[in-house]
């Protein structure tokens, strides 16, 4: 295949440059730190200048309180490895069906002055950790 004709070179270059700049711009504008609860205040982990971050942790059992007919949710998000590190979270909106005590949740938002995490997005994980949690979850482990 002869791609040495100038027109092809120009065409290919244009496409590659366009794609490259899309990649660059897209990445630059949408980067967001994805942290564990314990790293939220760790400047070595929370390295991006934006205060808005994603935080993953375990919803503390029994901590979910909803008010205003399920419009506002308050709960405690614990670090999934060390349960004594935790943050209070406030989320306004509809929670996914699999959001419940003891499950893993990912929240997006930022800490306010009172050290409460104000989330504008909440994802819950594990329902479709299709393997259900039964007495002995032995499979594949």
């Amino acid at each position, binding site marked *: 295949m002869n791609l040495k004709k100038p027109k092809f070179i120009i065409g290919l270059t244009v496409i590659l440059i366009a794609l490259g700049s899309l990649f660059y711009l897209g990445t630059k504008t*949408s980067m967001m730190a994805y942290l564990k609860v314990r790293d939220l205040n760790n400047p070595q982990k929370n390295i991006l200048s934006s205060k808005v971050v994603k935080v993953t942790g375990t919803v503390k059992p029994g901590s979910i309180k909803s008010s205003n007919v399920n419009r506002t949710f308050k709960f405690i998000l614990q670090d999934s490895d060390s349960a004594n590190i935790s943050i209070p979270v406030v989320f306004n909106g509809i929670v996914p069906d699999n959001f419940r005590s003891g499950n893993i949740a990912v929240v997006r938002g930022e800490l306010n002055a009172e050290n409460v995490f104000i989330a504008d997005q909440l994802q819950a994980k594990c329902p479709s950790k299709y393997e259900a949690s039964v007495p002995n979850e032995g499979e594949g482990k």
Partner: protein
Amino acid sequence: MIIVGQISLAIALAMAIYSGVASIIGIKNRSGQYLESGRRSIFSAFVALSTAMMLLSIALITKDYRLEYVAEHVSNSLPSFYAFSALWSGQAGSLLLWAWLLSLFSSLVIIQNKKKNLELLPYVVATLSGIMIFFVSLLVFVTNPFATLGYSVTQGSGLNPLLQNPGMVFHPPSLYLGYVGFAIPFSFAIGALITRKLDSQWILSTRRWTLFAWLFLGVGNLIGAKWAYVELGWGGFWGWDPVENASLMPWLVGTAFLHSVMIQERRDMLKIWNVTLIVFTFILTIFGTFVTRSGIIASVHSFGQSKLGPLFLSFLALIIFVSFYLIYTRRKDLKSRYHLDSILSRESSFLFNNLILIGAVFAVLWGTLFPMISEAVIGTKITVGAPFFNTVTVPIGIALILLTGICPLISWRKASVSNFTKNFLIPSAVLVVAFIILFVAGIRDFYSLMAFSLSIFVISTIVLEFYRGTAARMKYNNENLFNGLKNLVLKYRRRYGGYLIHIGMMLIFIGITGATVFKVEKEKVLRKGDSMAIKNYKLTFLGSDNFKTQLAEKFIATLKIEKDGKNLGIATPSKEYYYLQKQTTTEVSITSGIKEDLYIILAGGDNTGTVNIKAKINPLIGWIWWGGYILFAATIFTMWPSKKKKKPALIPGKEKVNTKNLESKIKVKG
């Protein structure tokens, strides 16, 4: 029965190993007997795996809790329909489905090629056996579906209620048909590389398999999108989750492959590119299976973390190494004698289409792996997420729509300016008119304007192609309109079927644009008798109801829907709480129309009879599903064997001459 299941898996493994070894010995010693026994043991593996599939299905339906897999995935009250679908709701079962489909497809390939591709087939069988050995080994040694629980239970833990949806019954098998289907063209490519028979034979022999795999992978994704839309209660259909991306990527590369093989068949060019594309497609299907199972990339869908990760990674590395070693050592045989003649040609527009599709794949791959890469490089996980995918894929999608319109209208080799103008005059006028109308109608978002008007442009080019072809037949063959159209489409299935597939894709693009850019949503707390307005709809809350069934407790709100003052009936969004799994599910109410869907979510309610309702208007979303139906029907139509042609795929030279003649006839007539 459990023992029989375990033994049949062991037999399947032995047969797969034997088939691989016998094929290699047969190839080395040129022994037809060994080759034949290798092929037969593929059949035996199929029988053994079918037995295992049957036994596991029976165990699930009869709820035989001695098996760990059964105890974990069904419960006493689960209907048989969903109990059966539990076959692929877990790790072990879905891997069994993978292996079984592979043995089924391999057997079909052997039967199909009884009298053809005699030189390639031994290598194909050896490659397929290799893949089978990997999957069946996982079943025997790592995640055995017939593992016993060791103690007795009288109640299983049940299927997650979110999975109790017809989507669950069709979505995973459809994806697996696609994933496994790509193993066939891949194996033929490997066979062609080893034997250095690198003409178009391997492509022609597996064209239907490729289309089949491409179709089911695409449809599987669409079913998944619909399922998410209906079941998950957030009103979206695609979330750029790693697992979703993992099944999108092989489909995109497969799409590129389906287009670029046409250049090889016709002009004997791009050989190395096509081999590389199919290798990448298969690698991405294995990568997809790996992502879903390893838990290595955070996803809302993945199976639990397991030790399958490293095994899949090693298998992936092996495939990559072998494939690229073969491509590298065969690079001279992959050189083409021909060159691209002009930038204004069908070939070069296909090439650009390919580049853009591959660009899309890299965008998706980059976004998916970015968190992992950033963690490895700088120690912090950085996600890019949906904003990245939207920034990058929307312009790529628009460029693709444009090329879909242009490609089929440019002639092969070199398009003349007059030919170009003639073909494009009407569609370009349509494009401009559509753009102006949409602009006047109030659409100001640039990308949406482009997506809509270019889709209309593409559809107009296709309608024009049908018109020209039919008109030519009417004039030269004296056929009436109906027969002219019928014969045109039936005679050139691939070409006109392809156009119909493009129409389906355009509807999907229109639907995605409408539902993503123009959605409206509103949330309100309502007391009995209260109403809320969203666009020209009015929802009045009539009351709520609470009752218990065997499986779940249900809370249902009843709302009256009015549109422009006209009564559209009753909506009953609900929340259901499943006792056994301690899982709440939100059942949304969807009122579908051509123009838009009204999507009502019951976000919450309390015992005073107050409810929190979220309503959404999702414009044009139905077009995605309709586009999907067209895509499905058109692909089946394209794949359907023509009766008149006598086994065209048998003789590669002839096929090429044939299509060329047909094509030039059409061109002349058009």
